[in-house]
């Protein structure tokens, strides 16, 4: 059984003066434990596709299945619940919540899930130590480096043990060394804990680390359907 199954999905953005066909008849399956890179020129639809897989957006046409559940027609409230339980997002520009401390950022999803404070603290502390940011927990995002911010963003994305982690251009804003370290770290999580990891990138070095590469162009998958 595929973890994600995309069937004949198209996405048209209609808000602009001219409708934009961002994705056209996409078929793709993602298996549990994959470490997959989506690559392609700018505007080829990588972000749009990852957002659909991550239940952040709904397709104009076609179906998205997550663990055999059709999610493409669910209401926003239901989608939010699925994201809270099953998906972890790491954004390109990290998007930490600036008013919250590092600890509160990492614990955010657990708080949404209604976990007790002691359990949240225990989990965030353990995770922060694994990421080497254990000493920064009471700082605010503005008080730590970009590399550290990205680790916080990673910790936040995985603290609830999601089925699927999505990283859109997650190393684009980091220098090479920091970016490579981060990828190695996630790769380790992928190997050790069987996390499924999908990411979009332009960077050939990042593509090399993937176990599978899906190439996109003009809203279509041109290679690597799997």
């Amino acid at each position, binding site marked *: 059984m595929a973890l994600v199954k995309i069937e004949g999905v198209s996405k048209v953005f209609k808000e602009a003066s001219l409708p934009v066909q961002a994705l056209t008849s996409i078929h793709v399956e993602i298996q549990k434990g994959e470490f997959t890179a989506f690559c392609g020129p700018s505007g080829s639809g990588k972000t749009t596709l990852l957002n659909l897989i991550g239940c952040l957006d709904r397709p104009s046409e076609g179906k998205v299945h997550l663990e055999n559940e059709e999610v493409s027609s669910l209401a*926003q409230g239901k989608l*939010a619940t*699925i994201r*809270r339980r099953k998906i972890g*997002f790491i954004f390109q520009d990290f998007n930490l919540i600036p*008013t*919250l401390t590092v600890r509160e950022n990492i614990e955010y999803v657990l*708080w949404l899930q209604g976990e007790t404070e002691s359990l949240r603290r225990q989990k965030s502390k353990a995770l922060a130590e694994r990421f080497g940011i254990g000493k920064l927990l009471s700082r605010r995002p503005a008080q730590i480096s970009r590399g550290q911010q990205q680790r916080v963003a990673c910790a*936040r994305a995985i603290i609830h043990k999601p089925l699927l982690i999505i990283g859109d251009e997650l190393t684009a804003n980091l220098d090479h060394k920091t970016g490579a370290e981060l990828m190695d770290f996630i790769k380790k999580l992928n190997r050790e804990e069987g996390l499924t990891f999908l990411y979009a990138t332009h960077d050939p070095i990042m593509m090399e680390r993937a176990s599978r590469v899906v190439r996109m162009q003009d809203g279509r998958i041109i290679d690597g359907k799997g």
Partner: protein
Amino acid sequence: MFLLKFALLNLTRNKRRSAITVLAVGIGLAALIFLWAFMDGSHEEQRENVTRLFTGHVQIHAAGFAKKMSAELVIPNRPEVLEKIKSNPRVVSLAPRSKCEALIGTTAQSKGIVLTGIDLDAEPLVTDIKKQVKEGEFLSGGEGKEILIGHVLAEKLEVGLGDKVVLMTQAMDGTLAGFAYRVKGVIHSGALPLDEYSAFISLASSQELLGIDSDIHEIAVRLRSRAEIEGFKKDMQTVLPSDSYEMLAWNEIVPEVDQWASYSNAIIQTMLIAVMAVIAVGVMNTILMSIFERTKEIGVMMALGTGPRQVVSMIFFETLVLEFIGIILGIGLAYLLVFHFQRVGILMTGFEDAFAESFMSPVVHPHLAFHRVLTSVKTLVLITSFISLYPAWRAAKMEPVKAIYHS
């Protein structure tokens, strides 16, 4: 706890904007509460003054006297009734009176008035008529026939202190009775019923005029407080059965004061809603701006799994916190203002005449009842909460993708 902290953190992001909003809520609320206290204070004073000026708290007559005011309607069983009233623990003092319609005149002209015969010792314990005699003196109780008249009446009749006036009225036996009186004092009360349409003579003299022996028409009663009126009426129900007696509270005799109070209450309530709506729009605007500035952040929160309902409660909670701080400030401010002006009083210079017309002294002492605070706060919370659902709903309706890529 986290929700509260998060709301506070978000509100302190733009400290100045939040502070201005809190101030607006606080000042608006304080101003309304104070206005209410001011009006309540002046109504309170009006009520007190009316009972002090001439009605007392309760008046007792023979049944039907208030309407007909005819001399033969004297109070039945007078000694027993007086005794029963005196022994009621709520009663502080009482004054027996006679009362009739009369013509007062000089050789040149005459006017219709209400003539009251008062007990010179008992009356000052119930009302302040004695204090209103600003020219000449109060009745002396001597052999000579003395009369007190209002200053407007004195002007119209063109009489002054020591001048003679003639009183004519229908006596108990139906004959026309008349006597000459000397003006002993002139009343300046500020209230037209007293200043233009009243005259006072001693009870003994009026009993002679009317031929009613020792009988009386009215007992004016002062109780420990106005709050005792209902209780007193109940106590007296069996002693003074309604087929033979009538008992009138001061506000049945002068209903204008209470009508005026409920009229201005209605105005304040309308203002309350209007002002609160303006404040609420201000609060809503603040929250809308803060949401707009945080669009991307809210999008990220949504991506992390924050559902529409959680977004609504987060933003709604922010509104509540903002409002709550403003309310605390407003109540504090209102109490400070009220306490201050309760001590020093508010002098309404320039309004003395208008105030006197409505039984008020020109110094108002605000009076703050807790239920006024409660009503104001409830209205504010209701309206603000209702209006603030809009920004919360707008935020929750955002599509996460658009919010995240919003710049």
